[in-house]
């Protein structure tokens, strides 16, 4: 269908063209921006890529004095904290999704919980870190002392806990949306066969919404992987492979935050290499998650019509 870009008189024609060029240009700018980001990271990381190659990811030693850099400790730190955070947060976010999507779709309670979750999502990362310093750290320290482990208070566990709290809203809101998209007649059919609420949720709703819930979890994972401030404040800043859940560690994001200001030469290139990897990993996770959700919404609107 013609969007209205018709041939008009020549004077407005030029301003038309100019306008369209501006619009398309702004759009193109976004693409160029992203390409420029990727190119910059790649080019500045090149010295490190050339020196370490793919072995960067299995190298365990990150030593500025001997200039040997291996990113395995940070990969491990990122993966451990993110997946642990996911594990801790999944029961809660699914509970919220079911609560808001099934039991309390409307009403005061629903609005209250929904707003509360939104507020949770809006709290800046550094404030989570601040709270974690004065609340989580003593709590974890108490647990560590009871267990006889070194009472650092910081480390993988503490940062996973704060990450879990931070990512609950993301998977919760997406989960809620896909649960509301479950067609009513499917549920009606089950109810008419005598199923209880629980059985409907378990056997109809969740399987139907499964891919959406997983996509929501993926997006939450993407957020957890890239999270910097709260993690930097609570992870203990150790450039070694973590040996236990109580070990201090570093994630890809936190090592960059710690060491970039003073990094030169190969050190800087290695840090940017880490940033490049971080960029690519979050990109893949986010794109997959978003596309799954988009496909689900398209399917749902197709079914509804």
């Amino acid at each position, binding site marked *: 269908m013609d969007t209205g870009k018709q041939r008009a008189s020549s004077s407005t024609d030029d301003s038309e063209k100019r306008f369209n060029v501006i619009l398309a240009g702004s759009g193109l700018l976004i693409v160029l921006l992203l390409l420029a980001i990727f190119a910059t990271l790649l080019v500045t990381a090149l010295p490190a890529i050339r020196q370490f190659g793919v072995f960067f990811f299995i190298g365990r030693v990150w030593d500025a004095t001997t200039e040997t850099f291996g990113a395995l400790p940070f990969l491990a730190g990122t993966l451990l904290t993110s997946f642990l955070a996911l594990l801790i947060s999944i029961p809660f976010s699914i509970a919220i999704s079911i609560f808001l999507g099934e039991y309390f779709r409307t009403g005061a309670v629903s609005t209250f919980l929904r707003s509360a979750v939104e507020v949770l999502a809006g709290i800046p990362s550094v404030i989570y870190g601040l709270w974690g310093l004065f609340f989580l750290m003593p709590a974890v320290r108490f647990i560590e002392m009871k267990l006889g482990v070194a009472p650092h208070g910081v480390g993988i566990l503490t940062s996973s806990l704060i990450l879990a709290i931070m990512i609950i809203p993301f998977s919760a809101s997406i989960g809620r949306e896909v649960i509301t998209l479950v067609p009513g007649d499917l549920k009606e059919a089950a109810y008419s066969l005598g199923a209880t609420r629980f059985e409907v949720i378990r056997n109809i709703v969740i399987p139907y919404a499964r891919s959406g819930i997983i996509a929501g979890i993926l997006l939450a994972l993407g957020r957890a992987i890239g999270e910097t401030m709260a993690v930097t*404040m609570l992870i203990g800043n150790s450039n070694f492979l973590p040996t236990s859940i109580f070990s201090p560690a570093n994630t890809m994001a936190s090592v960059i935050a710690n060491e970039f200001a003073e990094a030169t030469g190969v050190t800087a290139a290695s840090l940017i290499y880490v940033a490049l990897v971080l960029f690519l990993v979050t990109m893949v996770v*986010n794109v997959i998650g978003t596309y799954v959700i988009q496909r689900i919404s398209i399917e749902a609107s197709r079914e509804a019509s």
Partner: protein
Amino acid sequence: MTGNHIGRRLAKDALFKGVVCLLAFLSLLPLFLILYYITMKGISVINWDFLFSLPRPIGESGGGVVNAIVGTLMLIVLSSVISVPCGIAAGIYLSENKAGKLSNTIRLCVIVLQGTPSIVIGIIAYLWIVAPLRTFSALSGGVALSIMMLPVIIKTTEETLKLIPYHLKEASLALGVPYYRTILKVILPSGISGILTGILLSVARITGETAPLLFTAFGNQFMNVNIFKPIDSLPYRIFYYAMSPYPEWHSFAWGASFILVVLALALNLIARGISVKWKIQF
């Protein structure tokens, strides 16, 4: 037999509901704890001095965070000026060109940009602006934040404009209004509430960002309104004070957090209010 069976199923049903409700409200526990801490410890610190004076030297008591407050406001203005025009224009383009290679590429790029970690954007801003200009500056911080604002603005603009019925544009074009005028004077104003909401939401998002500012805005104990010089900001102050050993600075961190949370909440509320009150119904 059947009685028992149904009883068990009903029990499971009730148990499940109980567990779901419990977990849902339990997940709010950290939120309440955080808000409680911020309010209790933050409010007691807020006074005229805190809001309007500069920080004192290390170890001396007293002082405030006025430079951080002004810095945050400046960064918000700076990044909005950079990102809003570009974001709205790109959003218009996407809503007008639903299909097409460029549109789909742009949409993909928006998704990737939105998910890019803030620390990576901070590095980019350092490499693009701080290094060539040979100085840390508010400008570099503003650029980093504007990159983070773009995806939200583009998406909300596109979504808002897509909702506007086609007959509005049709009528305007039928009256002979040129295309660009139709967009600027008919379509955009109709969607202004949604667009403004998107801008406010993206501002609320970047107000609390610290990572992009670590190597760009750099921090400044003095007041600064010059965009080519380093500038302080509330999140940076919170980070700096939180990691210090001084108890007074810890309370300052809570006070600054209080200001930040109030600011972010206010932005969200205003955004919500705008989307309700100014919404043009079709």
